[in-house]
């Protein structure tokens, strides 16, 4: 289980998080949506324990599997050596990863669909491939909580599809509490059970996707008129999609 209770974060005179509460039990996935600068990243940092709370509390396991948007190390490691770093918390300060840890790392790479990159240099992989390796590292921690920072932000449509499939695969096993941030409400519809809408007025709305991802709420969220359409999905069953009704659409 991972979440915040009545969390308050202030930067100087600005209150970024105002008594924010949400909870993600094991087996559920939460999508956090909000306009730029509203505090999505601060929320993630607070959940991960990197952001000091001015009030309120945080619920999280000791180690949270964290999947950053990009890895910033300038070091050239092989992908498998990046993934085995997920074992660090189990190994302690002077510990070295052994065969068991490498087995866990290989299994995590396989689960993330990135086995074929194991021996490749991480810095030579594409953005989407790196993300799969970083996901494998988060899985290798063995944590029951996974936190993704804007996982779709730098991905093309094909890779977004692949990411959402992966997220859904993890969700289907119902053995993790998953949190991700996104700019696209369709990602919440596609891969989340719950959504947290961080409104521009400082309020926030937390609840099941079907109740929170509605045109009215999204118009408040982004200040753009929104439409919801039901389309036949790839399997023939109806699939819900959210579209912004930009000026161009009205003109047409």
């Amino acid at each position, binding site marked *: 289980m991972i979440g915040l209770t009545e969390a308050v974060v202030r930067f100087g005179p600005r209150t970024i998080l105002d008594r924010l509460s949400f909870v993600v039990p094991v087996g559920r996935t939460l999508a956090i949506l909000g306009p730029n600068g509203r505090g999505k990243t601060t929320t993630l*940092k607070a959940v*991960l*324990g*990197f952001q000091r709370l001015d009030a309120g509390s945080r619920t999280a396991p*000791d*180690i*949270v*599997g*964290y999947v*950053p948007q990009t*890895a*910033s*190390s*300038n*070091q*050239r*490691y*092989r992908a*498998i*050596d990046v993934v085995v*770093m*997920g074992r*660090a*918390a189990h*190994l302690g*300060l*002077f*510990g*070295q*990863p052994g065969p068991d840890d490498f087995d866990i790392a*290989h299994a995590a*790479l*396989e689960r993330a669909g990135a*086995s*074929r990159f*194991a*021996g*490749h240099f991480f*810095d*030579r992989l594409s953005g989407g491939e790196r993300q799969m390796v970083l996901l494998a*590292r988060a899985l290798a*921690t063995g944590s029951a909580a996974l936190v993704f920072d804007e996982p779709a932000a730098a991905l093309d449509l094909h890779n977004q599809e692949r990411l959402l499939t992966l997220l859904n695969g993890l969700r289907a096993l119902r053995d993790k509490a998953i949190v991700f941030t996104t700019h696209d409400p369709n990602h919440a519809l596609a891969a989340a059970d719950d959504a947290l809408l961080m409104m521009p007025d400082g309020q926030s709305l937390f609840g099941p996707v079907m109740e929170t991802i509605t045109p009215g709420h999204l118009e408040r969220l982004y200040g753009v008129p929104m439409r919801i359409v039901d389309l036949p999905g790839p399997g023939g069953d109806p699939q819900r999609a959210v579209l912004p009704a930009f000026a161009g659409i009205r003109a047409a």
Partner: protein
Amino acid sequence: MATVTQELTTPVVRPHLARQTAAFAVLLVLLAVAVVASLCVGRFSVPAGRALELIWQGITDPARDLTEIDERIVLLVRAPRVLLAALAGAGLAVSGAALQGVFRNPLVSPDILGISQGAAFGGALAIMLGIWGFPLIAMVFLCGLAALILVGLLSRINGRTETVTVILSGLVISSMFSAVVSLLQFVADPNTSLPAIVYWLMGSFATATWDRTLVAAPGLVIGAFLLWMLRFRLNILSLDEAEARSLGANTSLERWLVFGLVAVIVGSQVAVSGIIGWIGIVIPHAARLIVGHDHRTLLPASVLLGAGFMVIIDTIARTATAAEIPLGVITALVGAPIFTLLLRHHYRERAGS
């Protein structure tokens, strides 16, 4: 699915391992050749077989009286010097490798934390006050540590320490101490203490004896050993702050542990052989080209390469001319071009990828 994984990963992983093993074999041979050569060459040259025989006798029967001249030269003059050079080179190289990892900056070296300059100040002050021997070493070590603590205090802003403020504080403390060292040189007696300070600052193993080697050895060996123990943790610390913390590292505490170990190593080295630049920056880069960036292999490779390189440099320093050339001069003359080549190689490769 598992068998498919095996097939896909094995071809990439296996040559990696074979390459690493070969690289370490070459580094070991290089170090062994450098050590034996250094024991043999000099104004009084000793055949390699005889040198090894003498070393063996020295190890098996250390209490024996040394009567022959070649015994005395190899066991009392060259052996402690070679050992000290090897330990110092290994210590500086492994410190550089660890710091570059922790700072995520390939241009960082042990000098950057102000330790070298702080230690230099301690040594210069001791020489000026006429203090020699163990008290000098103690002063050097304490001043190096004091410089590190000053950097720590200066870089701590609102209870948090950012990497960039550590580097900037290191620069500030370094230049402050080097200014004070210049001041000491300015007021030092030009007939006695000034030449001693200048020569000491330039770095040399010429004064190496078993006593001095044994004074420096514990700090160098223990410091390097503990850094080597931290090799996997250094991989974690080389990630960005949030990633490292999410993987369970207490980043600020662990960074200071690394800095402290580097202070022990550099302080021990500077105390007995003055400031030796470039090793801590050139050797880790060269080692990275040979065995890759993973600290689990980078640290041992840096130890072997640093030890071998330092022994070779020291041998050149004492044999190239009739008088000893200061080490700092040779490491800079050799190190600067090598570093330029490495840097150009690095960026050309990066631009190509």
